[in-house]
């Protein structure tokens, strides 16, 4: 009797832990523990904690929209949106055009978004058509389409006839590799309604902006089209039997992802202070993909909460890792190395999980 009740006790003691691990996912727990241990290390190394949190919030504002662009693609069933560089380039073009027109401040920012959306719709439509022809290997094809498009646009940046001296090379034609946004829309969102509590600076404008986009996404998923889009991802055969044009929905999802990629890079650029052209967009897709996966998404399911949690955790690690690594070892690239290990590791984990389930 006693024995029996004892075993029951141990079971009831471990059960909740196991349930938490199962519902939260082992990789996410490891990442959270990693972030916590970095924070502890930072405290020991007397790195100011408020500054770290401030930085994390700024990074959150910069990266969340890019992560959000993964969501429609996953939901519609095309997997992680490795075609993100396509959207990013549309956004960069919008940004460059807004500078060319000599716009400033919030106007410049929203004008850039306005210019980039039509381009993103067009590019997303074409990319969607392509994805419909390569069903089953969207992610592989997407990765290389992204790479190819970035390289192709490197020619574009050199040849496009932009005249503004802020952007153009001093000699010859084309646009510089990085274009400063100082005096344009650098930090326009971060400074908007910003305030400070306990030494933590909250970039209110950026947070409100990403919150608004998340809210729009939340609303969209509750419309008829949003539901149809999710049905396509969960079970294309079900969608077809319910009279949904699956191919069309996949294009819709791809367009929305591309638009969010374009808006995302502009939100990123305003926080970063520069537009990075040429090769820079190449690996952006991997960072966003890693973030949403850390948040708990899989290749088939994702929620807005995954976007927010994932971006917070991933960027939080990057923010703390850099000063901690710099203090512990003077190897300059340690933070960059840990970023690459974390982001590629989590993508590898997600892809392996997919294989395991099938």
């Amino acid at each position, binding site marked *: 009797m006693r024995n029996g009740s004892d075993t029951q006790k141990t079971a009831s003691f471990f059960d909740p832990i196991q349930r938490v691990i199962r519902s939260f996912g082992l990789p996410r727990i490891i990442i959270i523990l990693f972030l916590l241990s970095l924070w502890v290390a930072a405290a020991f190394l007397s790195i100011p904690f408020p500054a770290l949190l401030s930085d994390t919030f700024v990074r959150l504002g910069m990266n969340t929209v890019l992560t959000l662009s993964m969501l429609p693609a996953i939901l519609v069933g095309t997997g992680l949106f490795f075609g993100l560089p396509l959207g990013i380039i549309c956004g960069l073009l919008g940004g460059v055009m807004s500078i060319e027109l000599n716009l400033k401040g919030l106007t410049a920012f929203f004008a850039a978004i306005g210019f980039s959306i039509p381009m993103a719709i067009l590019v997303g439509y074409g990319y969607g058509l392509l994805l419909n022809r390569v069903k089953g290997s969207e992610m592989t094809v997407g990765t290389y389409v992204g790479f190819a498009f970035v390289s192709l646009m490197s020619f574009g940046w050199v040849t496009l006839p932009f005249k503004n001296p802020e952007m153009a090379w001093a000699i010859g034609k084309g646009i510089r590799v990085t274009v400063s946004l100082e005096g344009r829309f650098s930090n326009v969102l971060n400074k908007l309604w910003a305030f400070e509590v306990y030494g933590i600076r909250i970039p209110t404008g950026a947070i409100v902006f990403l919150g608004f986009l998340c809210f729009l996404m939340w*609303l969209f998923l*509750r*419309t*008829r089209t949003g*539901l*149809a889009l*999710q*049905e396509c991802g*969960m*079970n294309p*055969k*079900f969608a*077809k*039997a*319910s*009279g*949904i*044009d699956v191919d069309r929905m996949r294009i819709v999802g791809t367009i929305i992802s591309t638009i969010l990629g374009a808006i995302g890079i502009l939100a990123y650029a305003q926080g970063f202070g520069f537009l990075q052209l040429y090769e820079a967009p190449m690996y952006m897709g991997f960072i966003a993909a890693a973030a949403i996966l850390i948040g708990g998404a899989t290749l088939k*399911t994702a929620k807005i909460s995954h976007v927010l949690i994932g971006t917070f955790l991933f960027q939080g690690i990057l923010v703390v890792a850099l000063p901690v690594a710099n203090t512990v070892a003077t190897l300059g690239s340690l933070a960059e190395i840990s970023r690459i290990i974390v982001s590629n590791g989590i993508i590898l984990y997600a892809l392996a999980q997919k294989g395991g389930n099938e």
Partner: protein
Amino acid sequence: MERNDKLVLEMKNIAKEYYGNKVLKGINLSVREGEIHGIVGENGAGKSTLMNILFGMSVIHSTGGFQGSIEFLGKPVTITSPFDAMALGIGMVHQEFMLIPGYSVTENIKLNREITKENFLSKILGPPIRTLDWVAMGQDARNALSKLEMDIDEWVKIAGLPVGHMQFVEIARELDKKNIKLLVFDEPTAVLTESEAERLLSTLRRLAESGISILFITHRLHEIMEVCHNITVLRDGVQVATKPRSETTLEELARLMVGHTIESIAKRKTSLEQRKTILKVRNLRVLMPGETVYKVDLEIKEGEIFGIGGLAGQGKIGIANGIMGLYDSYGSVEFEGQTLPLNHPREAVKRGLAFLSEDRRGVGLLLDMSVEMNIVAPAIEIQKKFLKNLGVFSFLDRTQIRQFAQKMIQNLDIRCLGPEQPVKRLSGGNQQKVCIAKALALEPKLLFVSEPTRGIDIGAKKRVLDTLVELNQTSGMTVVLTSSELAELRSICDRIAIISEGRVMGILQPDAEDAQFGLLMAGEYAERQ
């Protein structure tokens, strides 16, 4: 031919359970040298399980093995893998071809048993890099083919050959194995044309005369009657009879094969002739892989429960899938007097047709979504129900969805923790009820139901069927029930069409004789109808 009394194969008292479900109950089978032994039975009668045991397939051994014993050439044997079976001299000609299209006939016949000769490199590096002896291989292939009286060139590629020839190449490959004693033919004529089938049958006879024993599995009863010496009939895992051909008839085999006792529900009073036609199908052809429909004409009356039966792979499943636009189809379909465009799922649902797919988990449900969203999803998409408008945009109306789902959960007695539970957590029977609720949300005029009781337990089966009858009687909904289980069709349908080889073989009353159903299912005597 002189009959030999030497036993080649003896399977004694074979029984097999899958997870407590008895699929074979004490089968005794013996085959003499040079005997053609026919095995007939409906789908699920246990034919393939028996063959899996004979070949030591892993599906048998990974599920706890089997009971009984096997003797081969008078000696008890244990066969734990297909290699053991091959070593004993048991060969199998598959229904699906196991051939490499890009290789020649010879290469396919000699695959993995190539004849090789030494070269100077292989003397150093060993057998794997010996040279292929093409001449010897070609001769062997030629010999095997001529045993079958095949005059095809042994060097042509498989890819371009007609289906019938591929079948013969398969047989040639088995014959080329020198020690072959027993050959199993698993529905070899299913894909052949009539003349090819004739040729195969005469080949079987000749092989038997040369001393090879043959197990011939088919559902074409006339072929069995033509070539077999002895015939075993299986039904629901039981050996119903084993008889010499001379002591039985086609009709008897058909009756033995079907042989269910039927309890019919009360028949309806109004005669069907007075009702008007709701669905008229002409020359329907559906390209559904594995269930191809070649030419189907049907007229379904308003308010009836119409059954579609037949063996697996004959095309009965394809009919509903084709009309609902899920697979490429040709022909003409009229619904309520108006032409229904084919290959257009949306239009079909819009017009008031609904479909409960045979592939419940694959097509019928969004497994990760909640019970309520599964129920309302198509109605939202097609009929724009359950939406509320806010300005230009409209959003899902959660309260309306919840109310409807709760009503359905109550009416259909769906056992779940609540409308928000994901459907993948429900049992098969309850999932099927969610599918029914989903169809009801569309308020269809005609409901296609395919294999509604597949994979659900017996109690739930009855409830699902009762629900269908109730819907039909209370709301006058026309139901077209497609099922592999004849007993199920006969218990609730007004008329039953039997499909064989993609065509309607005949339409029977549910109380027609067993033998009639059996004959139609075996594709016989279509002209009598």
